[in-house]
């Protein structure tokens, strides 16, 4: 009987069984940021415990950094205190910090891969639920709480229960104008926001085989929105090609050995999954959320559900609560919903390929006069390359604000926030009430190109129509 990648990585990193029945798992790579690490360092200091493997810990600052104010001290003294605390902790413990002055700062889930720190067959933890992103490389990556950040700093391990594995096949071919974001929104809508509880999701099938690393990252990123703590794609030539020559990737003879090792971690053809789900790519259309959790989505040509469409009491209550918050009428089309803000960025969709794809279609178009559109590159490296390619000019000329790197309006811990009950077309990952910084603010999740289409027309629109993306002949 073969093994899944999850089991192979787990077995290679399991230290022992703890008295409470959990497994002590070695965490090879620990990523930290300013929001969830300071308390962990505080707990270590209190107990006088050193950082066990500072060379396996990497830090960046992303949640609180302003994107239109580069000079310190920041106007928000709390943000300034947090960045200084991280600097101090990294200095004190000898931890590599991709600070704002290094040209390598950015959202932690974008920095890890682009620096080549994220590698197949490894375990990764970070005090952020979107750590599942790194699974795109065939790593097992866990979002953890601050006490576990403390555990990993202190011991390079943590206590975990083994997850089950659900294989999700997406077979066939996506239609033009349908993106990785639509795939994951569709998966979450199909399996539910808690459908993945207790599972790691293994994504595969023809669509994933042909996806770029950045597309795989978009899907793995939102695994947690479906309740799955980890999500991954088996490593293949696409993975190795992406990693080659990245700063922290193995070099020379080590590279060949590493590729052979990485390849061996891929799930065996005869491995047994706890569950298998298959989805046809052709069934997926551009998807937009209408509610207050990422599972509340519809295709662009569908209508917003009515309360009575809920199959259970709880589902009906959920629809009712969502409609009230969103100020939407059940039965209305999602298309045509007026938007106030367009946000392009985040660890889900703030990568170079996202910006490139949008720029291709945005060239020569103009943001609707009533829309504030902002583009926030996911990292300084993304911003730099985009600027070299002239993408910033395309965005600026269209009427987008071109910002510095960070999490920005995905969770609004920096000055980028919705105001009042503004509606935001957003390429981010969560549409929870208040998520984008205003208690009554409203978030519609969608792909980057759908955000651009909404920005241009001022309302939720089908990007395929707005930008003239045609179905291939014969379909």
């Amino acid at each position, binding site marked *: 009987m073969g093994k899944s990648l999850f089991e192979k990585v787990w077995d290679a990193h399991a230290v*022992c069984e703890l*008295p409470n029945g959990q497994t*002590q798992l*070695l965490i090879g790579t620990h990523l930290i940021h300013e929001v969830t690490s300071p308390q962990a360092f*505080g707990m270590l200091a209190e107990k006088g415990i050193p950082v*066990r493997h500072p060379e396996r810990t990497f830090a960046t600052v992303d949640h609180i950094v302003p994107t239109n104010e580069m000079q310190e001290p920041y106007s928000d003294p709390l943000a300034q205190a947090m960045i200084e605390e991280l600097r101090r902790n990294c200095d004190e413990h000898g931890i590599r910090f991709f600070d704002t002055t290094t040209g390598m700062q950015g959202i932690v889930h974008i920095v890890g891969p682009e620096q080549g720190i994220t590698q197949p067959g490894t375990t990764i933890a970070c005090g952020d639920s979107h750590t599942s992103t790194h699974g795109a490389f065939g790593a097992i990556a866990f979002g953890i*709480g601050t006490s576990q950040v403390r*555990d990993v700093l202190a011991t390079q391990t943590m206590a975990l229960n083994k997850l089950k594995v659900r294989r999700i096949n997406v077979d066939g071919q996506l239609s033009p104008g349908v993106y990785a974001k639509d795939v994951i929104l569709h998966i979450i809508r199909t399996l539910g926001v808690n459908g993945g509880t207790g599972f790691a999701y293994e994504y595969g099938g023809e669509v994933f085989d042909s996806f770029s690393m950045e597309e795989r990252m978009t899907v793995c990123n939102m695994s947690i929105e479906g309740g799955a703590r980890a999500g991954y794609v088996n490593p293949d030539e696409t993975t190795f090609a992406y990693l080659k020559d990245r700063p922290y990737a193995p070099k020379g003879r080590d590279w060949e050995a590493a590729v052979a090792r990485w390849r061996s971690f891929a799930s065996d053809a005869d491995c047994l999954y706890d569950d298998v789900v298959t989805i046809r790519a052709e069934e997926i259309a551009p998807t937009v959320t209408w509610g207050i959790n990422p599972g509340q989505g519809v295709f662009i040509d569908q209508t917003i559900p009515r309360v009575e469409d809920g199959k259970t009491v*709880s589902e009906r209550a959920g629809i009712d609560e969502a409609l009230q918050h969103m100020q939407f009428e059940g039965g209305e089309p999602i298309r045509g919903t007026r938007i106030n803000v367009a946000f392009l960025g985040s660890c889900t969709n703030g990568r170079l390929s996202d910006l490139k794809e949008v720029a291709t279609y945005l060239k020569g178009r103009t943001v609707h006069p009533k829309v504030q559109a902002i583009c926030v590159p996911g990292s300084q490296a993304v911003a730099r390359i985009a600027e070299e390619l002239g993408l910033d000019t395309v965005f600026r000329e269209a009427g987008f604000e071109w910002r510095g790197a960070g999490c920005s309006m995905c969770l609004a811990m920096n000055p980028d926030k919705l105001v009042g009950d503004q509606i935001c077309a957003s390429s981010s990952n969560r549409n929870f009430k208040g998520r984008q910084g205003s208690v009554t603010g409203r978030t519609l999740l969608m792909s980057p190109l759908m955000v651009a289409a909404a920005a241009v027309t001022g309302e939720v629109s089908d990007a395929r129509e707005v930008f003239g993306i045609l179905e291939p002949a014969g379909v």
Partner: protein
Amino acid sequence: MALEKITEVTGRGVSVNGDDIDTDRIIPARFMKCVTFDGLGEYVFHDVRRNEDGTDRTHPLNEARFAGASLLISGNNFGCGSSREHAPQAIYRAGFRAVIAEGFAEIFFGNSIQLGMPCVTAEGKDLDVLRAVVNAEPEVLITIDVVKKEIRFRDRRIPCEIREGARNALLNGKWDPLQDLLSHAEEVEAVAANLPYMAGR
């Protein structure tokens, strides 16, 4: 220092209804601009409890009759979303010592257990009974028995579940695993030695 063995939790309850209550709801992100967890209890469920001008909204946690409740009752997939430990920390620091729900999101559950705050699940119909009693008689004492996996109130008992590993951890005073993790340093290094990437290769 040995940790407390948590075999049962007794207190008064308060129900915050709804499924999929996310961690942004429990503690909005702007309150995470801090370098300690101190004071987070004050902001638990802030945006559903307070208007923007700071006045109170209608919410069970604002009702005097539920003041001092230490058992939080909610629906399915409680604590979904972010991995922020700020969420269970805020609940704990607001005086809660256990959460009863129809289901929990994975990361929230783990974070809570590690604080020694049991999270137990019960069937929806049983939770409806519990909610009705709590709402009618907020002074009723409720006991979560982690040993017997049951919730007792008045003359009733309803079954509850908790993942076995977490249950053992609570019962044996092993809910914070740090000491155990630290005690295996040699074994950890032996595993690390077989992983070339740990040495940057």
